[in-house]
């Protein structure tokens, strides 16, 4: 199960994720980001950043991580900066084993200490 709570600031949209990012839930994230991209076209130019808040994520699988990478790439193609924030230590360990921060940019990942 994955819950996504969206909050909008002046220039930042935050997607607060909680639950499991895995094969049965990745579609939710993809749809949410697609909707967001459609909205972006209608929003003023000020929106430049999307935060994916991982604080509530408990589990991931390979499909979930693959989807996260694709979502980040899609948003970047639209010149939107993506940050994955408040990543639980255990989840960050999995990212690190896959060298995801190294691949996508260390600055885009914020691990909870």
């Amino acid at each position, binding site marked *: 199960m994955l819950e996504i709570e969206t909050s909008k600031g002046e220039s930042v949209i935050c997607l607060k994720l909680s639950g499991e990012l895995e094969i049965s839930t990745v579609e939710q994230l993809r749809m949410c980001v697609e909707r967001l991209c459609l909205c972006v076209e209608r929003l003023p130019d000020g929106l430049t950043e999307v935060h994916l808040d991982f604080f509530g994520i408990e589990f991931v699988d*390979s499909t979930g991580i693959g989807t996260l990478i694709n979502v980040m790439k899609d948003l970047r193609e639209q010149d939107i900066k993506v940050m994955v924030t408040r990543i639980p230590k255990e989840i960050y360990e*999995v990212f690190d*084993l896959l060298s995801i921060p190294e*691949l996508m940019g260390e600055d885009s990942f914020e691990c909870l200490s």
Partner: protein
Amino acid sequence: MDGSITITEGKITVINPPPGGRYPTIEPLHNLTVLVNGEPVTKAVIVAAEDDIRIETHSQEPYLEMSVEISDDRLSAFMVVNRCFGREFRVRDCPSCLQARVGTVTAAEIPPRKISPREVMQLLKERGIASVSEQAVSRICEYNIEGEQKVLIARGRPATPSQNAVIEYTFLEKTAAGSPPENPFQKPQDLSVEVGQVLAVKTEAVEGAGGVDLFGEPIEPEPPQDVQILAGDGVRLLKNNTVAVASHAGRPVLDGRRQKVLKVIPVYTVPGDVDVNLGNISFKGDIVVWGDVLEGFSLKAGRDIIVHGNVIQAVLYAGGNMNLFKNVISSELNAGGAAIVLNRLLPHLKKVFSLIYGLLQAVQVLKKHHSFKLNDLQRGEGRLFQLLIDTKFKMLPKLIEEIFEIINSSKVSLSAEHMRDLEYLQKLTGINPSRINNGQEVLNILKTVEGILQKMQEDNNFTEPSHITAGYVQNSVINATGDITITGRGVIISKLSAGGNININKINAVVRGGRLSAAGVTNVKELGSNADVICIVEINEGSVLKAQVVHPAVTVKSSSGKYQFNRLSRSVKAYIKPDGKLEIEKLNAD
């Protein structure tokens, strides 16, 4: 005035001093005891005429010791006798004096008892030693001088060593007899054999004779080592495999790095030029061209290529050495056959092996991680392998791609077995990893790569390096698994790659532009030029560049960095230090 003490023939006379004078003293030395009034003294004591002074001399008993020494090889026994004579002493006379030190002189010497032959024989018998020399026993018994006597008393019979089988290669004598040619790869013209000519003769091994040690135990000689004449193509064995003769005409060679196989290589001789009248040549033995190899033609030899003329816009492949006496212009030379490709592939394959190993380990770690779910792997682990290869191991498909690029760009084909095994690597490229069912499939690929590496290294071990020698090279590409030696004016804008050394150091030899890469020493007289021609020397771990003169703009490249000369330099040496960094030693020349 003082008193005095005198000793004459053992008699002691003491004279007391008048009032005010000093009394005499007596001090014992060796081999005697001095008793003053019945008490023994050990140091100087004052005595008076009234004292009862006596001297008792000691005597030494004669001493005799016998022992037997055995040599490490158990073939020699020595009787060692230590004799020490006994001695009787008398008191040495002492003239009248105040301080008498009483010593002794030897009155008689007593030799130790005589040794009987029976006694000697008994001692040797106790040690179990047979075959005793009677003469030596007499010498011991008759000898009676003080000190140590060491006599060889018994001797075993050593084994006669075996003689190993020996192969004499008669055609090698032919080359050894003359003075060595100036060019080490130049073969004398008469180094060819006719049908039936004897190439090798084997002298059979001879078994040695047994011996006996001191104790009567037999000594077996080392068994002789046998060797076989290994006959390859063009060689027939006769007389119970002890004589090898040529079964066809050609050039005799001893092939192989460890085990030497005797072969006769067929020779294809072109008396003139390789041109439109002759066409391309592909021959499994040697090719000898007495004229030029002209534009657009190729030579492919299973063994050596010798060209007495020029090579112009041609492509030459040799499984063995290449000796080109004149100029090489706008041509491509490859010596070493498939080994050239193998040498280029080995480093890539080693990296691929290490990455696949890491990939399997990463999968195991991830599968055990408590925050990583395995739901999506129920139908196969392909997704996980694909994810890892797209992220952490993204170098893997790139390296595999490079491997096939090397193979495809090479005009020398690898064996079908190598190619079949290498095809398995394609399972780790593109979207193929997503089709992997489980880790066992990847483990099988890892084992295949390990097998390829092993086979390639074995092939390299058993193949002798192939060398190229040329007079002058311009605008050409040269690859050799062994050395590249330029005997003339040098190299102009060419790419040279050697598995051994590169030697361009004859008088006035120059390298004006191009790229040099050698696994050993790159030895150059003059490198670069005043004009801005690109000239690069690649240095790897274990390789060295030595150049007498280096012009500005020459670049030395290594995996740890590069160095570009900005002024004329002399006595240049470049190498990789143990810490992996590029080191340049040079003297400024301007």
